[in-house]
């Protein structure tokens, strides 16, 4: 009887566990996450690049989406647009000034449930020593057990950043961020 009770408790606990927010660590080790950017090249086309080094964590609860949180730290010197000379320039004090501002950071302050797996994540984005509010339009891509014993959850997201808002010496207008975040449950 006791055994049954224990089993019942365990089953209930397991079933009930999605009620609590689960914590995830962004899978940067396996590179199942990327922080990409796009900028307009003088009206001719789009220049794309990414930040190769970042880390972060998030919590997510299917039943209480507004309680979700995310924090991401970006190593600004890891900017990569597939051109060493341009990247060197982007790292210089004309843009990111990575010697002074080696990290950029996003910390969520509010998450809105837009239904059907859509979220609006508002947060403080700090870059170049300046903090501004930023809204990321996110979509849940999927979640479930992976074949290697872990549990994964992923989102994609987009946001728009104005270079002028962050005090860059050179300002080429707005930059679109394309974010793909896959987390492994802790």
């Amino acid at each position, binding site marked *: 009887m006791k055994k049954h009770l224990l089993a019942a408790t365990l089953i209930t606990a397991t079933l009930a566990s999605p009620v609590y927010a689960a914590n995830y660590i962004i899978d940067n080790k396996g590179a199942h996450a990327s922080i990409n950017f796009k900028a307009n090249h003088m009206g001719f086309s789009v220049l794309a690049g990414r930040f190769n080094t970042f880390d972060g964590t998030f919590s997510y609860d299917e039943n209480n989406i507004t309680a979700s949180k995310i924090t991401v730290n970006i190593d600004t010197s890891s900017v990569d647009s597939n*051109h*060493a*000379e341009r*990247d*060197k320039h982007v790292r210089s004090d004309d843009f990111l000034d990575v010697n002074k501002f080696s990290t950029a950071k996003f910390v969520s302050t509010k998450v809105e449930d837009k239904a059907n797996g859509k979220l609006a994540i508002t947060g403080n984005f700090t870059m170049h020593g300046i903090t501004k509010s930023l809204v990321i339009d996110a979509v849940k891509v999927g979640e479930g057990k992976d074949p290697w014993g872990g549990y994964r959850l992923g989102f994609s997201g987009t946001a728009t950043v104005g270079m002028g808002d962050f005090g860059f010496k*050179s300002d080429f207008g707005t930059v679109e961020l394309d974010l793909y975040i896959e987390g492994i449950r802790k």
Partner: protein
Amino acid sequence: MWKNTKLKYGLVTKVLHWISALTVFSLFVAGYWMVDLTYYSQWYKTAPHWHKSIGILLFIATLLRLIWRFYNVSPANIASHSKNVKLASKLVHIGIYLLLIVLMTSGYLISTADNRAIEVFGWFEVGSLGELFDKQADISGFVHQYVAYSLIALSVLHAIAAIKHHIIDKDETLKRMIK
């Protein structure tokens, strides 16, 4: 006439010396100016292209110059120079050669950090060795900038010394690099 003798510099040495001097000075001015060009300047792409092309040609010229130097006699020191002057001039000459090599190597490493080759006036390309160390473009850029300042400082010292020998000491130092 072409080769050096124990008494004077040959034509090859003199021509290479003065071409190098002119080129180093021009590249310095161009480099100093072009790094602050705005993106919309018509020189934004042309100036670095020429700077790199001429830099590669100067590297080839410097290699030839060094080979020529080692397979040729050097004129003897001028007898009226003191021991210290002889030592100082030797050190400055070695310093200029070293800085030149470091300067050109670091310049090469900036532009080739992403496997891209350096195109020399569309005549030929100098291939990349890949990214040899972390943050290659940034570190090489820093070295390139400060070694360039050092080379110009040392070259100015070299020029002032030559003029001093010519005007104050009235010796052969400068004359034998010209005549």
